[in-house]
């Protein structure tokens, strides 16, 4: 009594030929959107949170200063007092003026006054050091300042 013809079984595998394309798309997205970090940060960085954040318009005008305790690896050599890091080395407060001039030299002549200093400071650092840095930056005439912070998700 074979009234119903048995259906021919179709291939049970899912076509996965498009999978690499999807993954490649993701890969390209990440390759394009991320920036490789150029400097190794040798100070502790636990950035404080805030709500009233502003974005920087021109990234090429920004120079970074990192402030905080030396990382565990560097503590043997440099102790635990907060340090200022510019590019790849620790600098003293008095050296900031020279560093700013150097950074300004890398910019176009017309844009030199618009240089922005981004301060990435560990939240335990005391204001004494920050104030000294600010005084030096005023001396070097780099007066646009950005305190890098993280968006506070609990508020706002």
């Amino acid at each position, binding site marked *: 009594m074979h009234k119903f013809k048995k259906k021919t079984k179709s291939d049970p595998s899912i076509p996965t030929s498009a*999978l*690499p394309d999807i993954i490649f798309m993701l*890969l390209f997205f990440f390759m394009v959107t991320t920036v490789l970090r150029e400097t190794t940060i040798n100070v502790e960085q636990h*950035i404080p949170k805030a709500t009233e*954040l502003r974005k920087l318009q021109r990234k090429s005008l920004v120079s970074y200063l990192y402030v905080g305790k030396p990382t565990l690896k560097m503590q043997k050599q440099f102790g635990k007092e907060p340090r200022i890091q510019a590019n790849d080395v620790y600098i003293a407060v008095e050296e900031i003026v020279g560093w700013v001039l150097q950074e300004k030299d890398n910019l176009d002549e017309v844009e030199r006054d618009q240089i922005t200093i981004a301060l990435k400071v560990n939240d335990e650092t005391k204001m004494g050091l920050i104030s000294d840095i600010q005084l030096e930056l005023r001396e070097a*005439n780099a007066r646009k300042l950005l305190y890098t*912070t993280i968006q506070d998700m609990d508020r*706002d």
Partner: protein
Amino acid sequence: MAKKKRANPEINSSSMADIAFLLLIFFLVTTTIANDRGILMQLPPKPDDIEDIDVKIKEHNLFKVYVNSADRLLVEGEPLKDIELIRDMVKEHVLNNGVNPEMSDSPKDAIVSFKTDRGTSYEMYIGVLNELQGAYYEMYGERVGKTATEWRTLTNELDDPENKKLYDKGRGKDKDGKVTFPMNISIAEPSKIGGN
């Protein structure tokens, strides 16, 4: 001669996904998304560039915030626990327009003075500065019918003439190009009681 059965000419590409995954994970791990957001501030000019004129500021125009080396707040001479309360106090002070004789005469005259100690933590400093700037952003926003968040986004895109118009309106720019509603946040040199 018997014809050979042709093999399927497809290349086996099932491992392609694995290779791509490997690359993807490599990039995910090695890269950090740049964080270029924060609290923007303009420093005053060099100390010796400022002309030594004795500017008389009326006491009632000043709104004083002081943080000591133990991160305790003193606002207008009164201790304060919750830093989020500063925001409304600043707004009340700036928008007073001479009604209360102990507060500012006009937004133009109002000055918010923020002083710390050398021993104050950076976290506290950012927290208070955030509230002070937030109060101004809220007032600017209200003046142009926007929220503080919208105001902050529009200040990032001043190339747009529409935004520029709103920006000038919010800050009360008059015909001579003078700002009648400036963000007068003055950061005083820290005291040396605590810390290094």
